[in-house]
C-alpha cells in the first residue's frame, strides 16, 4: 500500500518540522496572523511540495506544472514556508510576512509572489477556481491529461454555498484530475465547527455530490500518499481527501484549541514552541535511525 519508503517519510517529516519552525518565526515577526491552521497543515504541505507536486521552484511559471490552489488563504504562512523551503524564495524573507511592501501579503496575492496560483482569503472560491483550471485543461488536453489540480480548503469554508456549486459542476464534468483536500481540524474563528455550524457527516455529503471521498490522517505521510495515488487512479470522478488534522500540530501548547485559529504566538510562547519543535526534530532523527 505505502509507496513511501522510510527514508522519504523521514525526509518529509524533517521538512514539515522545519516548515513549522519557520511558521512560528514568521508569525512572531509579523505580530498578527493565524497559527493553528498552518501548523496543522504542515505535513500535507511538506508532502505536496517535496513529493507530490510536479513543479519547478526555479521556474514558477513552467506551463506543465501541476496547480495548487489554496482556497483558505489565511493559512498563508504554511504555504509561504513550504515555498521558501522548496526554493521559491529565500527562507529569510519569511520574516517579512504581513509587513509593508512585503511579497508575503497577509493573504496571498498572486501578482506579488511568483509561484502563487491565485489570490485568496475570502472563503469558498478556491475550489471553483481549481475547477475552472481543470476545465480549461480538459478543453485543451482531453480526459487523459496527466496534469493535476489540487484545491486546498478549510473545513469551516464548507459552510459557503459556492463550494457546493463548484462540487456539482466538477462531478458533472467528471474532473478526475481534480484533487480537493479539506483540512478537517474542527475549528473556526467562533469555536468548534460542530458548534458553529455542524458539518458532519461530511464524507456522506460529498459522496452524495458524486465525488470519490477518502479519509486520511493529515499527519500520516503513507496515508496521505496512498490517498493521492488512489485519487490519481480514479477515472470519471473528482476526489476529495478529508484530512483529519490536529490544529496547532507539533506544539502541544497550541494543539486542538480554536483560540489559536487567528492569533500569533507571543515571544515567550514562540520560544517554547521552537524548543518543542527542536525536540520533535530530534525524535524524527532517532526514530528513523
Amino acid at each position, binding site marked *: 500500500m505505502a509507496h513511501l519508503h522510510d527514508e522519504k517519510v523521514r525526509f518529509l517529516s524533517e521538512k514539515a518540522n522545519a516548515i513549522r519552525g519557520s511558521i512560528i518565526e514568521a508569525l512572531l515577526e509579523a505580530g498578527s496572523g493565524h497559527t493553528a491552521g498552518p501548523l496543522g497543515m504542515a505535513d500535507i504541505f511538506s508532502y505536496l511540495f517535496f513529493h507530490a507536486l510536479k513543479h519547478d521552484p526555479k521556474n514558477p511559471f513552467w506551463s506543465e506544472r501541476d*496547480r495548487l*490552489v489554496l482556497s483558505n488563504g489565511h493559512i498563508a504562512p504554511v504555504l509561504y514556508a513550504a515555498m521558501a523551503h522548496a526554493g521559491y524564495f529565500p527562507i529569510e524573507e519569511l520574516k517579512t510576512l504581513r509587513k509593508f511592501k512585503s511579497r508575503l501579503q497577509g493573504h496571498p*496575492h*498572486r*501578482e506579488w509572489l511568483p509561484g502563487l*496560483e*491565485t*489570490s*485568496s*482569503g*475570502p472563503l*469558498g*472560491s*478556491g475550489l*471553483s*477556481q*481549481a*475547477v*475552472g*483550471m*481543470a*476545465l*480549461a*485543461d480538459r*478543453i*485543451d488536453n482531453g480526459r487523459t491529461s496527466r496534469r493535476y489540480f489540487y484545491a486546498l480548503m478549510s473545513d469551516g469554508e464548507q459552510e459557503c*454555498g*459556492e463550494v457546493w*456549486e*463548484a462540487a*456539482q*459542476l466538477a462531478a458533472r464534468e467528471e474532473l478526475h484530475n481534480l484533487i480537493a483536500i479539506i483540512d478537517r481540524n474542527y475549528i473556526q474563528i467562533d469555536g468548534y465547527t460542530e458548534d458553529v455550524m455542524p458539518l458532519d457527516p461530511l464524507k456522506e455529503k460529498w459522496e452524495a455530490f458524486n465525488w470519490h471521498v477518502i479519509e486520511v490522517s493529515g499527519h500520516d505521510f503513507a496515508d496521505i500518499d496512498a490517498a493521492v495515488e488512489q485519487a490519481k487512479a480514479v477515472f470519471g470522478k473528482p476526489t476529495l481527501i478529508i484530512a483529519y488534522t490536529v490544529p496547532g500540530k507539533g506544539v502541544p501548547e497550541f494543539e486542538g484549541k480554536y483560540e489559536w485559529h487567528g492569533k500569533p504566538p507571543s515571544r515567550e510562547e514562540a520560544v517554547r514552541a521552537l524548543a518543542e519543535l527542536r525536540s520533535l526534530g530530534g525524535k524524527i532523527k532517532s526514530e528513523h535511525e
Partner: protein
Amino acid sequence: MSEYRLRTEAHLNPHLFDVGIVEEPIRKGYGEGLLLAGKENEHVVALCADLKESTKTDLFAKEYPQRFIEMGIGEQNMAAVASGMAAMGKIPFMTSYAMFNPGRNWEQIRTTICYNDQNVKIIGSHAGVSVGPDGGTHQALEDIALMRVLPRMTVIVPADAIEARKATRAAAQHKGAVYIRLAREKSPVISTDDTPFTIGSASLLWGGGAANVALFACGGLVYQALRAARTLADMNISSTVVNVSTIKPLDKKTILDAVKDARAVVTVEEHQIHGGLGGAIAELLANFHPMRMEMVAVKDQFGQSGEPKELIHEYGLDEEGIVQATQNLLSRLC
C-alpha cells in the same frame, strides 16, 4: 434634416428619426459578437448560468459546444470558475442577468477576477427597467455602480445591437476584466457597421461647438437623448449629444470638449441616480470643469412590472423626461 445636425462622421442610421426605425435587442448583438469572437480566437470560452437562450449565448453554444460551459444557477461559482479558466489562458465570457451577474457574485468578481488580474468578461443582460413585466426583482439598476468602483474593471454600455456586437469583439481583444451591460427589450438600431467604436472612446453623435446643453447618454437611452436633442432644437435650445458607451475609463477629452462651450450638462441612463454614468461625469467635471448638472436616471427607487415603454416614461427616462429635465436645468440657471 440637416438643421438637426447629426454628426456625419458617426455614420448613424439614416432612418434614425423615422417612425418605423428598425429595432433589435441589444443582447442579440452580444450573441453575434461572441460568435465572431469565438471564430477569431480559439481561446474564447462562454459560461452561462441557465440563461443561454435569453442572453443569446446559445449562438456560440451551438457552434462551439466544447467551449461552452453550462453553469446552472450558480453565479458565484461561475465567476471563480471563469477566473480559473483565465488563469489557464482562456478568455471566458460569463453571462447571466445583470441582477445576478454582477449582482450576486460581486465579491467573487472583485477577488478572483479584478484583484487577481484575470482576463474575464462579465456580461450582464436584462439591465434597467425596460426588462418590463418581470418586475423590480429583475430590473438591475445598480450594476454600473457595482462595476465602476472596481479597480481594473472596464465598463461598457452599448447603445444598440450593432454597438454591442462591436463591443463584444473588442472585449475579447482587450486584455483585462470587462463588464458589458445589455438590455432585454428591442431597442432602435441607431448606428451602422461604419459607426466607429473603440473601448474608451465616447462619440459625439449630435451637435458640437457652442451649445446650450451637453447631453451624455448610454445604452438604449442614447436614442431618446437624440430625439430630445431634436425636440430641443425645435425649441431653440441647442445641444450636443455624446454616446458614452465606455463608462470606465471615461473619455476625458471628448467629454471636456463637449462641455467647454455649454451652459449645462444633462446625463441620461437607465440606472440608479447614484453611482452610474451621471456620477462618473460629475466626478470628472468636479475635478476639471465644474458646472451645473441634471441627472436623468431612476431616483433612488426600485422598478415594477409594466411594458418597457410605460416604465421608461414612468421613471422620466424618455425623450419627454429628458426635454423636461433640460428645461428645468436651464431655467434654474437664468
